[in-house]
């Protein structure tokens, strides 16, 4: 038995943490790549980083690493910043303190407090990788503590849904920026950019183990989109999403439900049976936008079935 509001907060707790981790990693890689400028005088390319994170900032995109760090890592008035995501995750955790374990709460609260301290420290702006590391380690540890100290019941499944839905969606967006049109695919297909893409998904080591260090665009897309074993691939996320949504449908068997797990099943099946060469020769942008659409539908279906349902439909006869 789980309160709808609690399910909602658990979902957003892990979704925000996943977002914080992803944003921190993508930007950390971008700041790192920017230091290896090639002969053409490659700029920081923050615009593309913004694009791949789908940041909706209206004001000017910063032109210096310091600007990026203050705006997208540390600015708590910017709802999309890493610090804001962690604060939002912590605020959701605070709503469900009786549902999660004390260890989980203490950890996410500790992460929040550490970041607040970093925000207050003027030297932080010059140490972006230290913040990224704190966030990445903090979220990974949270995941481990969650798996080890919370019953893997309905509440835990909502944490999985939040995490893997965010991951599928964000990875698809990241891939879309790299593969959406042929020109860009050519120009950006440089080794350095592809390695950067893999690193943005913490996938470089796993990729090399699988394909060797021979980094090619089609293989990178295949690995990050269709890879069955790598936990940050879209297909992997879709599979876990489907599993968790099926489990949730079972926990709540009295309700019609079922819609969310069917959409997730459809997404998972499509990824199971797609071929990377067909996607590339056909319309990679269209395919990746389709993934994002499925993610939106899953989100809406979860709300409709479990969280925001109309009370009249649920009253006793």
């Amino acid at each position, binding site marked *: 038995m789980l309160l709808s509001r609690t399910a909602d907060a658990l979902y957003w707790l892990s979704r925000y943490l996943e977002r914080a981790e992803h944003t921190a990693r993508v930007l950390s890689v971008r700041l790192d790549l920017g230091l290896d400028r090639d002969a053409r005088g490659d700029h920081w390319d923050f615009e593309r980083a913004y694009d791949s994170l789908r940041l909706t900032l209206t004001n000017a995109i910063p032109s210096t690493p310091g600007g990026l760090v203050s705006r997208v890592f540390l600015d708590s008035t910017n709802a999309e910043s890493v610090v804001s995501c962690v604060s939002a995750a912590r605020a959701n955790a605070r709503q469900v303190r*009786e549902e999660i374990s004390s260890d989980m709460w203490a950890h996410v609260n500790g992460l929040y407090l550490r970041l607040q301290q970093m925000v207050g420290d003027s030297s932080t702006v010059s140490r972006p990788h230290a913040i990224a590391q704190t966030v990445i380690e903090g979220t990974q540890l949270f995941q481990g503590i969650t798996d080890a100290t919370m019953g893997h019941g309905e509440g835990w499944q909502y944490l999985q849904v939040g995490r893997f839905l965010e991951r599928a969606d964000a990875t698809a967006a990241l891939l879309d920026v790299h593969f959406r049109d042929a020109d860009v695919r050519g120009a950006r297909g440089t080794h350095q950019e592809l390695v950067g893409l893999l690193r943005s998904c913490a996938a470089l080591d796993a990729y090399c183990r699988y394909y060797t260090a021979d980094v090619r665009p089609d293989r990178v897309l295949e690995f990050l989109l269709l890879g069955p074993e790598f936990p940050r691939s879209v297909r992997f996320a879709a599979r876990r999403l489907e599993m968790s949504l099926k489990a949730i449908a079972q926990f709540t068997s009295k309700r019609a439900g079922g819609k969310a797990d069917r959409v997730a099943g459809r997404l998972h099946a499509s990824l199971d049976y797609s071929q990377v060469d067909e996607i590339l020769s056909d319309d990679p942008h269209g395919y990746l936008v389709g993934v994002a659409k499925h993610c939106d539908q899953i989100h809406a279906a979860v709300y409709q079935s479990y969280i925001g349902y109309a009370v009249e439909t649920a009253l006793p006869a």
Partner: protein
Amino acid sequence: MTFAAGAGGTTETLKPFGAMFSDYHLGHHYDEMFEPSGQPRLHCRALYQDLLGLSLPELRERQGEADRAFLTQGVTFTVYGDTQGTERIFPYDLLPRIITGPEWRTLERGLAQRLTAINLFLKDVYHEGRIFSEGVVPRELVYSCRHYRREMRGVHVNRDIYVSIAGTDLVRLQDGRFVVLEDNLRVPSGVSYMVANRAVMKRVFPALFERYNVAPVAEYGQALLSTLRTLAPASRPDPTFVVLTPGVGNSAYFEHAFLAREMGVPLVEGPDLLVHDNIVYMRTTAGLRRVDVIYRRIDDDFLDPLAFRPDSQLGVPGLLNAYRAGNVALANAIGTGIADDKALYAYIPDIIRFYLSEEPIIDNVQTYLLDRPSDRAYVLEHLDELVVKAVGESGGYGMLIGPHSTSDEREQFRRKIVADPRNFIAQPTLSLSQAPCFMGTGIEGRHVDLRPYVLYGEKVTIVPGGLTRVALRKGSLVVNSSQGGGSKDTWVLED
């Protein structure tokens, strides 16, 4: 008066006061650790010895460790009136306050007696009103109380338990006797600090426990759940319990979440609940689920916008009717605030005598009722010696502490009293007992009170301990968390 080293003591095991106690003064009040002679009390000797063996940096380090533990665990309260919504830790003092087994047993009997009488009183007031017709308590006093709920007239309350959870504030007078300063019978808070203080104490100062048999407090959650279980309607064999909170913005939110977790029940907010055909449901992922017992941490006023304050966003429309229909139990019941009204407080000893034909085991503080002309005349003459309290206020607000007041403040209170005497009481300025506290540069005496939590179900359960609140400002008598108060772990010894 300052101790002379080794004053009056020849026992070999006792060393003279260490440097740590150089700022420690025994006043005219009772000292929780030391005899008036300067000797540590028998039951405090082992603790005192341990303290002498500690250095200042060591104490500071442990203090830091404790503060960090509270902050990381989010054992915090929100300060009202602070627009930032800042969460602060409730200042925690490192040194435990010790209560002996015999002292505790007297308190236990006294508190059980008091709450038994109060529950009988509440039933009587909302039903036949015997205590009025026999002239023990004036009818007007109860009917004029703003916590009186006429909606509760004639309503059957399951097992006649109105107050399931009480927090009674005790202070220790100069002669060592505990007296009741006030009863908290609506939504007493602070019990989570009793449990959290102990948990942190065991972590940062395990060695101090070695020479004592300290009664554990961790089972409070289970005791609370069993107490709530007695309220469940008999027709519901497998009842659903919830804790109802105003939400994360409430200053006691940590405690609400803590109690829900300790009991293993959902923590709900008003919008999670709805009433249909006088039955209360909560919204779950699997649809609506019936709720049987609500431990509510919301005041009467905000419980049901249809019955009480219509602007309440915190409550549940229709809850009162569901309650009156007997379909849901509330702890505490609606309307218990009449019994912790500060003016009614003066009648509690008579209430105990009336219902139980017993003498009160724990005394009250002498109290002047300002709508009695003779009391009022005396109080207005002696404002500079007395403490005046507004009857409906809590948290240390709306109070005049005579000896510490300016003539302007006294004049202000004089006008308020004359305008609305029913709204005020006065009491002599008490000398609260003091206990040793670590103040950063050494150990000093600070005034303390004690709030044990009394659970009234099948039987009366009092988890041995309570919240010892400390007035951290030197010389201050105000222990409230909102006004510079802190707390310390409270040890009840098992013999």
